[in-house]
Each structure stands twice: as C-alpha cells, then as structure tokens.
C-alpha cells in the first residue's frame, strides 16, 4: 500500500476503485452523454481521452492531473453529483483548476449530502503509482491510500 498526502479542497472520507486519467479530464466531453441520456454508470464520452473513453465514472475515485475544456465544467460536475452519476471523490495530482474547483464547491455547498471529497496537489508520483482498478481510501486531512 502506498500513501500520498495532498490538500483537501473539499474535506471528507471516501473508499472507491480508482479510475485514472493521465491527460487532462474534459468534464463536458466526458459527462455530456451520460447526463443527457440517462446513463447511470456515466460512461466517459470523451473520444480524446484513451484512458477513460467508454469507462464508467459513477462512484469511482477519479484520479487526474486537472480538468480541461468548456467552462460548463463545474456546473456539469455539480449536476452529475446531484443526479447520482458523479465520481465518489476527485483526486488531483496537480493544483486543482478553476472549473473542477467550482464543481467541487458547488456540490459541497448546494448538495444535501456534503458533496464529493476532493484532494489536490498529490504530486506526479501519485498519478504514476495509481492504476485503474486500485482500491483507494481518502481521509479528511487529504491523505490518500492506494492499494
């Protein structure tokens, strides 16, 4: 088991299976199909992301560098959370970007269940170590256990 320490952007605890994107995560391209057409598993629709394309995102520990793309991103993440199709937690190797931060904060402030635990600044070594399918445990203080 490996342990990494990041910064809790939205503090909380979670246990889930890792889904890893090594490239920027395009929130709109990834979620739009799922939100529009009732795909509760939220299979990733981003054709430009070979790590995630067609893989289910609901309930996973999404491990990523940052999010990219349309500025609907935060709103889309908030909707995914409110509709029960979001990842269970967001784990960023880099500093969180403005769109993902918006989504994480909107989900935390406006959702009834406290939102998605979100940790950033986990470092490149985190993204190098974690593999899709690994078990992930997230703690309130931003500690992330892999494996």
């Amino acid at each position: 088991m490996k342990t990494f320490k990041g910064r809790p952007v939205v503090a909380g605890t979670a246990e889930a299976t890792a889904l890893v994107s090594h490239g920027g995560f395009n929130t709109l391209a990834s979620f739009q199909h799922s939100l529009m057409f009732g795909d509760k598993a939220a299979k990733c629709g981003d054709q430009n992301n070979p790590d995630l394309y067609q893989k289910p995102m609901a309930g996973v520990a999404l491990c990523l560098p940052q999010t990219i793309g349309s500025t609907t991103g935060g709103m889309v993440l908030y909707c995914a959370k409110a509709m029960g199709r979001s990842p269970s937690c967001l784990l960023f190797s880099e500093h969180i970007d403005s769109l993902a931060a918006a989504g994480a904060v909107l989900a935390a402030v406006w959702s009834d269940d406290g939102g998605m635990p979100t940790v950033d600044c986990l470092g490149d070594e985190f993204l190098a170590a974690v593999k899709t399918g690994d078990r992930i445990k997230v703690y309130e203080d931003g500690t992330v256990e892999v494996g």
Partner: protein
Amino acid sequence: MEYKMELTPEQLAILNGEKGETMAKVLKTLVLYGEAFGATKMVPVTGEMGHLVTSFGLGVMKPVYELMDKLIADGCVSKQKFSVDPKPLDKNVPSDPIKNLVFKKFMYSAQESYDKQLADLGLLNSDAYTCTCYMDEVGNKPKKGDVLSWAESSAVVYANSVLGARCNRNSGIIELFGSICGFVPYFGLLTDEGRKATWVVELKVTKKPEAQVLGSAIGMKVMEEVPYVKGLTDWIGTELNGDATAYLKDFGAATASNGAVGLYHIAGLTPEAVEQGESLIADGVKTYVIDDAELERVKASYPVIWKNKDATPKLCFVGCPHLSYAQLTEWTNNVSDALKQNGRTKVSVPTVFTAAPGVVKKFREDKELSAKLDATGVVLSYICPLMYMNNPLAEKMPVITCSNKLRTYTSARYYTSAEILDIITKGVK
C-alpha cells in the same frame, strides 16, 4: 465557519445570513472557490455586463433549474445585465420530424422555462444569445482592465487576451454568482502575476498556420498555462484589425477547448504584449517550437469517430465560435465564387453558417450580400452547433466542420477552412 479570506463587514454579514440563506450560500460558494486558489480578498466586478455559458434548457439538468428557481424566488438576481451562449434550436437548420421531436419534447424541453429564468435573472435582451458577445453588433465588449465575471471558454480567453480585460476561467453558475454579488475572488488571471507567460511558443512555419490547428496544438501542450507566442505577427500583422481579431477568436477557442487556456499573449499584437513585451514572460519558462510538421502531426492525431470513415458528409457547420460579420461576408463571397468556378449553383453538402443574432441582422440588411448567400443554399443561423450535435441522432450523422471546438465535443470531423470550402462547393462522392 472560519474563512481564510479577508472579508468586509458587509460580506461577513451576508455570510451570516443578513440577506437570507440563499444569498449566504451564493457568497459562501464564491469564498470557498476563491480560497481553493489562495484568494486573499474579493474585488469588485467593474465590467459593465456579465456573460453566462448556460443557454440550453436541457430537460435533464433539473438541479441547475431548481437552483435558478431558488435564486429568483429569494431575490438573488444579477446586479448587471448579461449575455448568454447561443440557443440550441433554430427551425431554419436542416432537421427532420424525428429530430424535431427529440429536440423539443425530450432534450430541450426546458428551453422556454429556462429562457424565462434567464430574463428574470438579468438577460440583456432576447438577441443576447451568442458565444461572441464582444462583437460590436452585440454590445457586450469589455474595456482593457475591466474585471469580469464571465464564463464560456472562448469568450473568456478572447476578453483576457485580445481586449485586455481580467477574468478567470469561471464555471457556469460561478459566473452568475459573481454577477449577483458584484464581486469576485482575487486570484489567477485577475492578478499581474497570474497573467505572466509560463510558456514561450516559437513559430517556425513556412505558411500562415490555420488558426484552429495552431490553437489546438498550443492548448494541448500548455493546458491551463499562459503562452507567449512569437512569430505570429509575420502572418497576421501587427494591427488588431478585423482579420486579426477574427483569427485570434478562432485560435483562442481552440486553445481553450483543446486545452484550458484562459489567456495568451501574441508578441507585438495583443495589448499586454505590446505594452510590456518580454517582461511578461515568467522565470523558468518552458519552450514549445511549432513548425509545419508539428501542425501536421497535431491535425493527423484527431480521431475520426464516424462509424463509416468514408461516409459522405450530411451536414457542415461553419461558425463555432460564431462568425464575425467580416468572416460571414468572406465565407459568402468565397462559397459563391467557388461554386461558379466549379460550375455549380448550390452547395453539395447542407451547410450552416452561424453568427450572433446581431451579426445575422446586420448581414440581412445588406440585401445583395444576403441574396448572394441564399443563392448558394447555405443556411444562416444563430444556433449553437455544439448543442445541435449533442444527441444520438446528430451524433450518428457524418458532420464536417472547420471548428476545433466542435470537433472536440462532438462526432464532427475536422477539416481546414480551405478543405471545407472545397468539399461543399464540389460534388461529393
């Protein structure tokens, strides 16, 4: 709750519920959002108008509309007028009865009620639906130094880079919250430090780069960082005229959608690069050299996700982001001339040009130009091509475009502007 940000007594009172629970949550969202980036304070929004990214009444996005209803019911409306992204529907755009049914009854079933919500929240007017709100014909054009609370990635990058305004890459909902409060957290692209370039891009090409491919290459490389581009003025000049700003609009949209660029500097052209030169470049900068081969490599890397890659195109979109008046005029003349050269009268692929309602109106006032376009068979619309494409029916259609943004978010296949002109004005196989 303890906040790290320095807040005024008025802001603290709002957080403590003096203006109601909803307003407290609106401000709490902005504070927590700013604190994620180390913002030390809020600064006033000084731009005259806002711009929202969410223009579509997708029936399934109930959480957003419920939130809007709550804002309106509790009097939390925008302190400034705002424009908003283009509408997703236009009866003039080629469709069929099944698509119309899917669009109106299922997908965009909340469009009318959402349009009403936007009007209640502070929409500028019923023509203010465009991603290019900064066009003169629309009127939401910020001044240099204005602090904005905008979203829409292509508009934000244009306002920052070409107009010299200051705006973070805000998300949908966050931008509205800034317009409601009248202030935004001070961080990132609002600060002098955050506007410094961390990448230098050296252009070493032998011909004018396609704006949409050059922007895509830079976006994919620098992600959300700020590039300082050298060598582009050799191809687009040193004056921010109509041609240069149109080029930068398309270039910027590609940097923002293929990456997450919120600001770029063009050496010798954009306002801050002209004023400050290379002092805008941060220490420890990285370098990206782009030559003809690199642009070819990037273009060749775009996946084609059509089921039949050799399918005959069924629809073509030009204008994502919306065309400027000058671009619309140029495309009209180019299509008309090319059809004549090819011995044809109408385009061979159903084609839609998109522009802001104000630009469409001005274009239609020129009867000669308007008739020239109509004679080619091209449809002129205010629609958002991206929203049109986001459904299983359109997704299965072989659609072509010269927009890298549309390519990124949909199944549309990318071609350069010259290739598109060639395809639509010659017979298709």
